[in-house]
């Protein structure tokens, strides 16, 4: 069938600069560039370009420009390029469209409507270069009250604290499965977690044997497909996370196509090589909250109550009630993944239309747990679209204990957010399991970039805390007095629990 799709991007090459080195041909995994021997020039098939910018950055003479196609459909407020192109593509394919990364639609980003406070006159800001500012974060279940035994002058703690996680930063690395990304990415994140004193969630595809040595800093995930789950795996992690859903595709299972299931991945996932790895939409042993409780306790039994158990859900309309149920079902940590949360592959229509913004979800869950008097007993991790350290600070001020970053960590490694992760051809060597392309991601280099990112954000978080006059992150947690809204409606402000700027 002849395609009626307009090329989205146009690749231009300055032929005067081009040395015919063919690096672009080698680097492009989508087959855009080719050598025309007859004319001795490099040419491009623009219609294949996804704007991953790999060639642009690797061309030694900066000869390549990728720009949006100026040929556009007639302007139409309602029928934008996005909708017309999707229809044409579906008319040709007859299938649901896939996409990668998180929702890119222009829904309001509340982070950009929230501003932070700083000290002036009545109390002094604290200078992080001269004074310690603490960002260590413990995640796990906490008792309501501590009990002590006091004998002759001696005080002894009687209450036992349940096992928990101790992160030296409120930033953790979000679940990305082996299969969705390759071993180099996993290794880079695991090593970065060790170096930063934080945790890396290995996702639902099991844990490669080479990475067990980092397991003190790894959270192992148990999802509906149960890939790679055995006693050794459960006991390896510092914590176990039950994945109920994720922000990019709430209510939807996962599908790793057989082509991506190499021998190695098959072995780690404990399935035959070359078969599709299907994660059902629900856990087929969890049809209600009491079933979740059973799974939580099954995992705790299996690991002899030595590890905290987290439950991850996509932020949806009634997250507050669901989160309260999860806390009561025995989870030690609740993970909320907002509508901007990313994925290796999801139906585009789901990614773009299902779920709610993480900011509102944090606010309503934190508030609900407080109303029920149980907020301090569980930890809350927010995830999905955290873009910089200010987003982290705002998330914590709204009520989260910590955040997961996924997309940001990948961007640090090289990802350009081209959203083609589902093709398995990621030119940056991230969302691919092709052994050749995977080599592009050097774990040594990638790990350094991620460590640098966390280090930079830690410094900024301390700067912001110090400016607010706080020397410890626990004083920020749920401290909505430090936030003010701009350009929000009364109702939005009410749900966020913050005042309008100027109030």
């Amino acid at each position, binding site marked *: 069938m002849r395609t009626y799709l307009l090329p989205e991007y146009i690749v231009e090459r300055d032929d005067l600069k081009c040395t015919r080195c063919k690096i672009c041909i080698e680097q492009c995994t989508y087959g855009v560039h080719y050598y025309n021997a007859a004319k001795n020039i490099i040419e491009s098939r623009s219609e294949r370009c996804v704007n991953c910018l790999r060639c642009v950055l690797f061309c030694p003479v900066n000869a390549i420009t990728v720009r949006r196609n100026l040929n556009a459909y007639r302007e139409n407020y309602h029928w934008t390029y996005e909708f017309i192109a999707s229809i044409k593509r579906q008319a040709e394919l007859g299938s649901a469209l896939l996409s990668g990364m998180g929702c890119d639609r222009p829904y309001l980003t509340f982070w950009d409507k929230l501003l932070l406070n700083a000290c002036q006159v009545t109390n002094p800001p604290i200078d992080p270069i001269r004074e310690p500012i603490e960002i260590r974060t413990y995640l796990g279940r906490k008792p309501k009250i501590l009990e002590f035994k006091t004998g002759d002058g001696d005080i002894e703690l009687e209450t036992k604290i349940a096992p928990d996680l101790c992160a030296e930063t409120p930033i953790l690395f979000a679940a990305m499965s082996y299969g969705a990304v390759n071993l180099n990415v996993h290794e880079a994140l695991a090593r970065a977690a060790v170096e930063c004193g934080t945790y890396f969630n290995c996702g639902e595809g099991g844990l490669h044997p080479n990475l067990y040595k980092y397991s003190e800093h790894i959270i192992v995930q148990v999802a509906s497909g149960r890939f790679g789950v055995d006693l050794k795996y459960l006991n390896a992690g510092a914590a176990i996370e039950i994945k109920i859903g994720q922000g990019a595709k709430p209510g939807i299972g996962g599908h790793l196509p057989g082509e991506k299931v190499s021998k190695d991945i098959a072995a780690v996932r404990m399935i035959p090589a070359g078969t599709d790895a299907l994660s059902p939409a629900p856990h087929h042993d969890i049809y209600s909250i009491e079933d979740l409780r059973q799974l939580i306790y099954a995992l705790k039994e299996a690991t002899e109550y030595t590890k905290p158990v987290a439950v991850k859900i996509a932020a949806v309309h009634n997250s507050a009630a669901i989160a309260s149920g999860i806390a009561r079902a025995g989870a030690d940590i609740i993970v909320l993944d907002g509508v901007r949360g990313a994925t290796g592959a999801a139906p585009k229509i789901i990614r773009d239309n299902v779920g709610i913004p993480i900011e509102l979800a944090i606010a309503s869950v934190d508030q609900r747990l407080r109303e029920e008097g149980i907020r301090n007993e569980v930890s809350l991790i927010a995830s999905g679209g955290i873009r910089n350290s200010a987003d982290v600070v705002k998330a914590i001020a709204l009520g989260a204990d910590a955040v997961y970053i996924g997309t940001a960590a990948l961007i640090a490694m090289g990802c350009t957010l081209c959203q083609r992760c589902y093709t398995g051809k990621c030119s940056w060597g991230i969302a691919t399991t092709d052994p050749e392309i995977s080599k592009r991601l050097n774990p040594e280099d990638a790990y350094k970039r991620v460590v640098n990112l966390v280090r930079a954000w830690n410094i900024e978080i301390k700067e912001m805390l110090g400016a607010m006059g706080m020397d410890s992150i626990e004083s*920020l947690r749920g401290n909505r007095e430090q936030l003010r809204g701009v350009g929000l409606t009364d109702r939005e402000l009410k749900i966020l629990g913050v005042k309008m700027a100027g109030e």
Partner: protein
Amino acid sequence: MYAKSKQISHHHNDDKIFSSCALFGMINLTGVRFTSREPLRAISSMRERGNGLGGGFAIYGIYPDFKDLYAFHAMYMNLKSKERAEKILMRDFRILLSEEIPTKGSNKLPNPPIFWRYFLEPEPSKIKDEYVDSDEYVVKRVRKINIGVKGAYIISSGKNMGVFKGIGFPEDIADFFYLDEYEGYMWVCHARFPTNTPGWWGGAHPFNILDWSVAHNGELSSYGVNRRYLEMQGYKCTMWTDTEVLAYAFDLLARRHRIPIKLIAKILAPPYWEEIDSMEIKERLMFTALRKVYGSLMMNGPFSIIVAHHGEMIGLTDRKKLRPLTAGIKGDFLYISSEEAAIRLISPKLDKIIRPSGGEMIIGRIKSPQSLEVPPLIRREHI
């Protein structure tokens, strides 16, 4: 006189009222009662630290004749609020004496509310039905009046003690309430410098619940989280001040959770993780647990406080010591003050002067002078 009383309340709907202050506390460790003369001289000497928009006193041991009854000091903005509050008091308590607190009508203080005091005990039949101890019973009622009855505030509710406070310099307040006619074994005094005008009577310190009183100088950046944590525990913050939050924190930790007082200091002003990490295992686990469980009650930002309850006076600053605090001992007296000069003014030849470092607590406990604890200086390497 009552007709003139205007409803002075919280005008600007600020998050909270900022203020800087002077603190002075004095306790006779053998329990001998003394007059207002010395504490008043000392607090008045720190006039620079107040601006005449708030002053107050908590005096312990003032009602020996009624020492087994709860003494309620009530502040009413108008007669209507008095009527409504008294309805609750009469229903839930057996009131043995109800009288106006003598005040000077001619005093220059602006718009004074009505001050009343009650000596009472929980209505026996009602308390039996509720299965709570009498303290909890009292706290519930105080909360009910302070939140539910507009313009009525129970400003102190302990036994054999009372709080006197309002808008003015401490000496004006002392004059207004004829404080020269009272005697106590422990005085906690406060002068305020609120940044909003006009100050309001309810916002003055000390803040009290049961026999816990707090006088405070500081500005808590953690107010938002302290407040939300306490609200989760059933407290309602009605006074918009950091001090209220501190008083409730003491009530929760000391009375309801029975945390030893030494450790309460370590909750409000905890050691740094670096210090905790280098402790012996048992201590390390204890201090780590304190920060994990009570992190929301860490008072972050500059503060110095004097906390008092029967038989005990405590001084504490934030862990960076961003507000001043000094203590002195002379004979049976322990003094805690924002400034050393105020102590020297009334007791020039001290036996001992203590300048606690950040997060260290000074405790003066009656009848056993040895119990005056000065924790060892904690060395802190800054990163």
